[in-house]
């Protein structure tokens, strides 16, 4: 169990809802859910979720911290926004799902080998190198995420799609060597680093018991 996870359990001992409200992006909306279920019914991937959004909101209010944060449900969201459009209370459900996923990752609770979580990490690292996504490398790292053998298999399976993307100039072989980027890459990296420092400082206060008591 990560230190941060322990600290957060201590901090919000009896109220997972308060924890979500304070730490999850758009988390303050969770209490607005009236359990009508239109989000769950509208989700195109709904049947693949262990817990649909409506159930997640209820679980948060019921204090089922571990079940929610270790669930892979919020990682299933594809940002289609069907739920947001139909929610009678206009909850930003998509954003809450991504907020929950981010928070679970921060606490080290992401399910092992969750493909979406892995993809998100690969995407982030890829983009941070140059400030732009390198499609070729992104595709390749995704294919080889489970090792060399499966990677070759996956690459061959998708070779037609890859060729088409090359033809349409959506992907260039030259990208393999360096690739395009933003004008001021080091400036961007500095900016992100600073933001990360601020976030780390914010989270660090939970590691210090004195600070957490009056938090």
């Amino acid at each position, binding site marked *: 169990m990560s230190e941060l996870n322990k600290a957060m359990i201590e901090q919000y001992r009896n109220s997972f809802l308060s924890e979500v409200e304070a730490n999850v992006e758009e988390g303050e909306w969770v209490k607005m859910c009236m*359990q009508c*279920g239109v989000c769950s*019914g509208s989700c195109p991937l709904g049947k693949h979720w262990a817990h649909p959004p409506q159930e997640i909101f209820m679980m948060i209010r019921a204090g089922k911290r571990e079940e929610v944060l270790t669930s892979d449900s919020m990682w299933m969201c594809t940002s289609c926004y069907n739920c947001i*459009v139909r929610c009678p209370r*206009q909850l930003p459900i998509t954003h809450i799902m991504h907020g929950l996923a981010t928070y679970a990752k921060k606490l080290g609770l992401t399910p092992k080998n969750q493909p979406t979580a892995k993809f998100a990490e690969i995407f982030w690292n890829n983009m941070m190198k140059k400030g732009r996504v390198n499609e070729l490398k992104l595709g390749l790292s995704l294919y080889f995420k489970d090792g060399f053998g499966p990677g070759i298999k996956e690459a061959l399976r998708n070779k037609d799609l890859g060729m088409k993307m090359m033809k349409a100039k959506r992907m260039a072989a030259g990208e393999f060597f360096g690739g395009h980027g933003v004008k001021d890459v080091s400036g961007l990296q500095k900016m992100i680093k600073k933001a990360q420092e601020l976030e780390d400082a914010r989270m660090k206060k939970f590691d210090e018991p004195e600070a957490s008591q009056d938090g």
Partner: protein
Amino acid sequence: MTEVVATNQTILVVGGGISGMTAALEAAETGAQVVLVEKRPYLGGRVSQLYKYFPKLCHPTCGLEINQRRAKMNPNLTIVTGAEVSKLEGEAGNYTATVKLSPTYVNDNCTACGECAKAVEAEFDDEYNYGLSKRKGAYLPHVMAHPMKYVLDPAIIGTDDAQKAKDACKYDAIDLDDKEKEIQFPVGAVVWATGWKPYDAAKIQPYGYDRFANVVTNVEFERMADPKGPTGGKILRPSDGKEAKNVAFIQCAGSRDRNHLYHCSRICCMASLKQTHYVVDAYGDDAQVSIYYIDIRAIDRFEDFYAEVRAMDNVKFIKSKVASITRGENDNPCLNGVDTEGYHRYATEHDLVVLATGMEPSVSVDSFPVDVEINREGFIEPAEKNGGVFAAGCASDALDVNRAVQSATGAALKAIQVVNRVARAEG
């Protein structure tokens, strides 16, 4: 009926539905002079289009008949139909009302013999049945219309049909040269009772009201249950005319939804429970009713009515706001969603789906002829700046008939107080 004798001690009632009729009669029976202005060619409003009332399951025609009789007998009450208030200027105790009178083409000689309707040919959607049936270009709006006069559709004026209607009339009751008029008269206080309209179900895109024939609204279903209605009281599927025995109701269709109506429309839960009786009465043990709901709002004495429906063997309650309707086999609407009691995913087909659409105020926020306080939902709030204008019934909030009538009596009393003050001041 274009002469209106009025003074600043007269009460103007805008809208002749159940609220307006009640306010007008209550005020007139205390001795006040009342002018009742109604946009439609007849009184009774949406109540006249209901088959039964909840919770007693008695017929609204009964109460309407009593009110119409009271109206006929009262010399203090002037009724103007086919009229709309276009301007209201002044202040409490001293208003000038401007009223636009649509041409009626039919005068008081009409005996409702019906010869004109037989003579004309063109047909139009019957608004009394929410477009579920057709009516002629010369028609009696409904069997209990008050005033009991035939109406000529303005669309036939200038066509052969208009002349045919005139030629068929033995009582010289048709005047094809009737023109729109505008009249002005003084009033002391105003009861604003313009009522409600059903929320436009086509705006709820995932339910496909505009795409699926077998998805209807609760007001349409009410007409289908009425023996005088478009199906002769039979509950049938619009797509193929077959009996609809497996009926689903979707609650909060438009209500309690920030994308549609903010408010709870209050009547729809009870209306669907009432309409469940229609299905069970029609098909007995063969009936199968499913009610999809967020929560059932049957308050006070309505709780018993709810409990009774809940206990029926062939009625199911599914706690879920339906996410979408898709086309199933044989034009069956297929309801998709996840229920809240166990999070079970369902895709269930029904013969017919009734959307329990909510109420919205019939006058839009920017077309009030007078400056009154309107809330976010479009209803009139009691406020100082409203002066001598008092909202009654569904112009003030989403109300059932019982509460609308209470609200109307209250508004009548406030209006009487204003004109009494005027009378005292003028000695």
